[in-house]
């Protein structure tokens, strides 16, 4: 098994994108109104990372896949009901706060500590996966700090493709400016890959995979360690919804050419 990998996917949970979000104040800082009752999903880019990881593990026999997720246990359980049916993994839950407002540095510390303590993990064969940004904080820093804390200095972000080669080296496509990809070759594991969308479709729900996963997910959730996420000197001055800007003008009897000319003039001025 020359390419047997230890893949750890870091994935948070975020509110369903169709939900209306309203900021509110909580005793621990800003949060979302009714956050605990909003339907949640696995963070979209991190979900891409999970599907890519599962495909990679399937192609390389002997590989192992962990899903490390920080969030309130009840929300994690709700999200796992769906995600567990997609691909085979071992859940490593961390009981902690939900949302994008807690500090990324403290979050990364809790995740790195958990990964370092995973029983049976071979750090020389480690591929640390996650989304390049979350749909909550959207900062793109947590995975990088986790990588640093684990001493990994081969890191790639905005990844859309990984091709593992014989001998353990791999080629990575990272998104860069101008809709292009930077192509890099890394000599081998360990490495950190922050995924963009990748190339794989969302796997279909497979009830058998779900049942197999749930046998380990429920005990893991019960044993989830609680993480305290310190503010690390971060203070919010204000948290608000963006102000709507609408300047409507009622105009009659303009020809299509006049409307087009006005639009061109307006776009030019912008």
């Amino acid at each position, binding site marked *: 098994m020359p390419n047997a990998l230890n893949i750890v996917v870091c994935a948070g949970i975020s509110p369903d994108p169709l939900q209306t979000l309203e900021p509110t104040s909580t005793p621990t800082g800003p949060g979302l109104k009714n956050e605990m009752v909003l339907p949640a999903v696995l963070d979209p880019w991190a979900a891409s990372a999970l599907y890519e990881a599962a495909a990679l593990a399937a192609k390389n026999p002997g590989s192992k896949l962990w899903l490390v997720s920080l969030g309130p246990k009840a929300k994690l359980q709700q999200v796992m009901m769906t995600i567990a049916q997609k691909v085979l993994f071992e859940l490593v839950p961390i009981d902690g706060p939900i949302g994008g407002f807690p500090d990324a540095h403290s979050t990364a510390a809790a995740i790195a500590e958990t990964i370092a303590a995973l029983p049976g993990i071979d750090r020389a064969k480690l591929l640390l996966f996650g989304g390049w940004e979350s*749909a909550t904080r959207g900062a793109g*820093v947590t995975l990088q700090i986790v990588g640093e804390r684990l001493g990994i200095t*081969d890191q790639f972000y905005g990844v859309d493709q990984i091709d593992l080669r014989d001998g353990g080296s791999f080629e990575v496509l990272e998104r860069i400016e101008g809709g292009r990809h930077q192509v890099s070759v890394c000599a081998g594991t360990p490495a950190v890959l922050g995924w963009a969308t990748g190339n794989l479709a969302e796997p279909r729900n497979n009830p058998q995979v779900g049942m197999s996963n749930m046998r380990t997910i429920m005990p893991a959730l019960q044993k989830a360690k609680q993480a305290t996420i310190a503010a690390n000197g971060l203070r919010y001055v204000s948290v608000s919804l963006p102000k709507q800007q609408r300047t409507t003008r009622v105009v009659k009897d303009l020809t299509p050419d006049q409307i087009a000319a006005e639009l061109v003039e307006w776009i030019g001025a912008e």
Partner: protein
Amino acid sequence: METILVLTHADETGATLTKASLEAITAGQQLATGLSAQLTIGIVSSDATHLSKGLPSARLLAVSGEAIAQPRYATDAAACEAICRAAAATIVLAPSSSRFARVSAGVAHRLNGSIDTHITNLNVAAIGDTATIEATRWFYRQRIEAVLTRDARPWFMLLDTGTNEPFAGVMNTTAVEEVKVELHVGRTTVVGIRAPKQDEQTI
């Protein structure tokens, strides 16, 4: 008193600084003026000697060499770390380019600092006798806007492109100070750029 460092890098040709870097310099200048702070500009480029022309009067630090001609985590992080240590900066501004977004959080961690990214606005607010930096950024994919501040230093902030005018000002006569750092190319090699075909159907 704050010391402000603006990290910049050359474009793919290596001949000029990127537009986003020049925008970060504008933001750095404004912040330095607001805080009456010292401004330092750091340049990451294979050859920084000709890049200092056209920059504002400030201390200029550079890490140069063939090893950082290619954007990659190991070398870029080491270069940025060396510049930050040489500048002893408390505030580090950098453009949200793919190159700096790849390494800035790691560098902030190495320096025991903090980082916030996708900053769209910087403001200096006076709280009593103390001037505080307030940064604006989006959360939940541009659905919630927050203004935040941090006590921890150094504080790294990655500025979104298009939020400041690119710097275009007086010519600089300051010499570039080369920061010595051992850059290990490591295990990653950049082999090229892949661009979609002009006529490629994306739908």
